[in-house]
């Protein structure tokens, strides 16, 4: 199968003052890949993900999106972000809009779609995530799992080419994790390119096509889930997995 590069990251660094969070990340992601990014807290996973749609301004290095340098001065950031979906740990649904409007506003104002078109698209994806019955609800009236499913529908409604997930299940009650992971699994099977920062090792193992282990601001290991979980090359990966997998039991 022919592979097409979607992200090429070279020597990406990010400092917060004197705190060097990312110390040179090199990574290539192809279309259709589902990449899980795992690692201990503070290893730079979320910062890396947030650099990809420039919610964080990288300190150094380059990020190419389909060959185009997104750090270029004349790069159209709005248009780019519209193509890159993002799902946050804290959902970040717009509190002043109901579920339907949350999934329509970006389509109308950023992509310039008509109200009709935006509504149809929003309903289509809300149905896919099982939230079509709640289109009139405000975010504050939903459970965490429901909110996150709406957030995924919002990203999909923009016809995103990639979706970045920043610990999508970390803020959820345990019994709501499953419904969100199920939606993500279906999405992965539909061929969507996904980068998922997660603590859900089962998801990383079963759903992703590739797992990246980050440690101390660099990619320590980058391999298939089989190798990472059964036969990791890096000592730090082994240690990390032993710790988190033991905790799971």
């Amino acid at each position, binding site marked *: 199968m022919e592979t097409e590069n979607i992200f090429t990251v070279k020597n990406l660094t990010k400092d917060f003052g004197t705190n060097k969070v990312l110390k040179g990340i090199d990574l290539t992601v192809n279309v259709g890949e589902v990449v899980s990014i795992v690692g201990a807290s503070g290893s730079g996973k979320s910062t890396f993900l947030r650099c990809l*749609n420039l*919610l964080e301004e990288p300190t150094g290095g380059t990020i190419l999106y389909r060959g185009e340098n997104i750090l270029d*001065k004349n790069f159209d*950031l*709005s*248009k*780019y*972000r*519209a193509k*890159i*979906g*993002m799902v*946050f740990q*804290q*959902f*970040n*649904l*717009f*509190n*002043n809009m*109901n579920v339907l409007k949350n999934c329509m*506003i*970006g389509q109308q*104002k*950023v*992509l310039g779609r008509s109200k009709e078109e935006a509504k149809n698209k929003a309903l289509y994806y809300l149905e896919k995530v099982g939230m*079509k*019955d*709640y*289109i*009139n*609800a*405000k975010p*504050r*009236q939903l459970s*965490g799992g429901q909110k996150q499913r709406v957030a995924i529908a*919002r*990203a999909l409604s*923009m016809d995103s080419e990639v979706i970045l997930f920043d610990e999508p299940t970390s803020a959820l009650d345990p019994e709501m994790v499953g419904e969100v992971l199920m939606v993500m699994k279906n999405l992965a099977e539909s061929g969507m390119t996904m980068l998922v920062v997660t603590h859900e090792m089962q998801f990383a193992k079963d759903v992703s096509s590739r797992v990246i282990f980050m440690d101390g601001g660099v990619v320590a290991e980058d391999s298939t889930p089989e190798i990472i979980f059964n036969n990791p090359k890096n000592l730090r990966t082994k240690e990390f997995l032993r710790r988190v997998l033991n905790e799971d039991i």
Partner: protein
Amino acid sequence: MFFETIAKVWQTGWRQLFIGVGNTLLISLISTIIGLLIGLLIGIIRTIPQSKNPVLKVVKKIVNVILSIYIEVFRGTPMMVQARVIDWGYAFIAGGQTLPLIPSALFIVSINTGAYMAEIVRGGIISIDKGQFEGAQAIGMNHFQTMVYVVIPQVLRNILPSISNEFVINIKDTSVLNVIGVAELFYQATVLSKLTFEIFATYAIISVMYLIMTFTITRLLRLFEKLLEGKNTYTIMGSQSDPKAEIHIKSEGRDGN
């Protein structure tokens, strides 16, 4: 005796007093709205993210300094003084020509309210969760879209009590405009008291009139707040197949996550 005096004063001057009420309400209402718009505009400008372009960076710094000066000057001096300075300042520059009274009253109160509103809006913007901005940016909204569609509607709801507070303050503070001769309620009362020589009765009457105005406005805005709050229930769409089977789910709290 007292009520007879009141009745006498009322009979002589009620028309003038109502003109005063009209002008007071007109000036305070329009100025509160314009002041709010000034405050929102300043709020949007001050939150523009730092640009990489060095020229824009400098422009932004200069604009911020100008805005700070504006806010400090108009919050830090009495409106009565501002009224005289602006009115007589204009006459000084224009060689004795004076500004028309109502427009200059609107100008003075609006620009004064704007300075306060700018700070109220700033507080409102700070109180909005950072995630709301990020959620908007992540789907490609620019700063202006983020503010107009996502942030400002939430800010407005949060600062509504402060807005109604400003409105009430403006109703009372328009009274200082008598120093430049604007025919608001206090000015009309002064004229009336000189006509009737019943100073106590005249001002007792307008105290009640001020109180009725502010009380009514506060209640109306409280009602408006309730309306904005919206319904506490929503309808699950699946139940549409059976119109009697509407399921209403009560929300847990105003901002419960």
